């Protein structure tokens, strides 16, 4: 949020990043690998926090850009294996492509006056189109260069990132992801305090009114949507290099919904909260899956229901406020959040 700083949030963010930077020193290589996976998925949540939490664009379509990024990187790098510097170039081009695709979609929607829940529906349909389409590319007709798209099985053996002579696997990959995440997190934080940052909050709060302060609202929306697409695409590429693998399930209904669920449950107007909740969720879900418990999905579902019912601003944000109140005596803040929530009820 633009006004003031929440103290706990900053302290927690600093502690977490500090911990993440030193933790490979004392945890095993599997956990490092695992955390780098969670962190890769955090970009997807960040992208939705940016466009939904800050700009009020509700999208089910982050999975589209996630998949586009992953598939583009796979096809490009597998076609040009052996070429040095192809993997970082693939990463860069993939991010740009994701942004461009999002910009085109955004242009098509926002200049045409499509907004609110309709953006969610249109992106949902697009996700389903791509998942249906990619799912049937199993035949030999679907080759791009030497790479077969592989239908439901997806593409395998996607090369890991290489920065010059350094192959980014294990700890290298972990630090690569962590540094990018840290940089992007800081940039996003700065961005929200910038001129455009204020403008997008204004757009979220009242789109029509913001136009009358001389803002080209569709243009700003398209650009923010493009930035969100680029972030989602980055997430997809990191996921593809992490598992050396991408499938159409990246576009499936569940993949489209999970970022929405994570961001909403963690706190959609707060980047720190969505990173924390994303990492916790994946960690927890994996733990449940590994335990082989048949109650895993039931527990996850119940948590989501309870969180939305009782802490509608998101559980992590709620904890931040609680701690602010306990340790920094900021009574008024909580009240304001309450009112904000009521306000949203009226417009939402």
């Amino acid at each position, binding site marked *: 949020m633009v006004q003031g700083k929440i103290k706990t949030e900053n302290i927690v963010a600093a502690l977490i990043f500090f911990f993440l930077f030193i933790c490979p020193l004392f945890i095993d290589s599997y956990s490092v690998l695992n955390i780098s996976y969670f962190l890769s998925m955090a970009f997807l949540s960040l992208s939705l926090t940016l466009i939904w939490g800050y700009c009020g664009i509700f999208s089910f379509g982050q999975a589209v850009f996630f998949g586009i990024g992953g598939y583009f990187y796979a096809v490009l790098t597998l076609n040009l294996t052996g070429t040095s510097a192809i993997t970082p170039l693939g990463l860069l081009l993939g991010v740009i492509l994701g942004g461009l695709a999002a910009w085109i979609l955004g242009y098509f929607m926002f200049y045409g006056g499509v907004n609110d829940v309709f953006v969610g529906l249109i992106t949902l349909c697009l996700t*389903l189109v791509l998942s249906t389409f990619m799912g049937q590319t199993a035949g030999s007709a679907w080759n791009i260069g030497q790479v077969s798209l592989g239908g439901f099985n997806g593409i395998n053996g996607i090369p890991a990132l290489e920065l010059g002579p350094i192959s980014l696997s294990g700890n290298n990959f972990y630090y690569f992801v962590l540094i990018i995440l840290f940089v992007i997190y800081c940039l996003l934080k700065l961005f929200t305090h910038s001129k455009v940052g204020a403008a997008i909050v204004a757009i979220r709060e009242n789109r029509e009114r913001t136009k009358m302060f001389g803002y080209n609202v569709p243009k700003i929306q398209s650009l923010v949507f493009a930035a969100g697409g680029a972030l989602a695409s980055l997430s997809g590429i990191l996921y593809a290099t992490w598992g050396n693998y991408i499938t159409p399930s990246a576009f499936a209904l569940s993949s489209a919904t999970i970022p929405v669920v994570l961001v909403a449950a963690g706190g959609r107007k707060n980047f720190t909260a969505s990173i924390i909740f994303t990492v916790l969720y994946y960690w927890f879900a994996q733990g449940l899956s590994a335990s082989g418990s048949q109650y895993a999905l039931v527990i996850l579902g119940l948590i989501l229901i309870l969180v939305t019912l009782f802490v509608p601003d998101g559980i992590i944000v709620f904890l931040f406020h609680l701690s602010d109140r306990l340790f920094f005596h900021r009574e008024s803040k909580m009240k304001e959040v309450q009112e904000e929530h009521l306000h949203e009820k009226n417009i939402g």
Partner: protein
Amino acid sequence: MSLSSLMNQFINDFSFLILAAIGLAVIFGMMKIINLAHGEFIMLGAYITTLSAQAGVPLIISIVFGAIGVGIMGYLIDRLIICRLYGRTLDSVVVTWGISMVIQQGMLIIFGPSLQGVSTPLGSVSFAGSTYSVYRILLFAISIGALFLLYLIFMKTKFGLYSRATMQNQEIARSMGVNTNRIYSMTFSIGAAFAGLTGGLYAPTMAISPTFGTGFLMQSFVTVIVGGANPLIGTSLSGGVLGIVNSILDTTWGTFFGEIGLLICAILVIRLLPLGFSGVVEKWFVRKRRM
């Protein structure tokens, strides 16, 4: 493709789209809640129907049980959970997603990965050189009947009047003494009952498993998106139009193109007519009345 097979296909597609969407359309149109647990409601209807049919209850009564059972369950879910989310469209996405996870996995735990199905009743008839399943033709009739039932509920009853008033303007309705919370609960329950009915009706034609509902989800969402907010006008029109699109594409180029065609239709409609077919129709009516 011959006209008769096209016709056969249309009958199937139309009834499937209408029945898949009707419960979702009621809940979305009246309450602005996107119910991601819709597929699970359908699945529950199928389970109730199948279990009672196996217990010896005649199929037709089993189907009614399915609808009523899911309706009651919908009422409970609304009272326990959804009633706290009225007007919060996006939060309802998260909650209903959670509900769908719990129901689907819960059914797997209780009943295992599959259930023995009941077979499709009523044999088949031959007409103009092709065979039609009588049950399928009956489904077509029932889908139209369901739309008519919706018409009766929302246009001819006091509840319908109140609920339309609530949908138009909740504040005014409330100030005139309508218990809007009760209206919402009833609406959710009716939507759930329609979903249960769909599940019951399709139970004898499909494999019964906890993922039963996923086969309906895409079609139901597309139909509702294309139809717009008014469950009656929207669902019937979009069911008709999409039914035609799907049956033509499907019979000429195959299942995949039928599916893609539906989705592209939906995207075009949101872009060109964001309020869906019912928005267009309502506008047209307003104009006509004012002229």
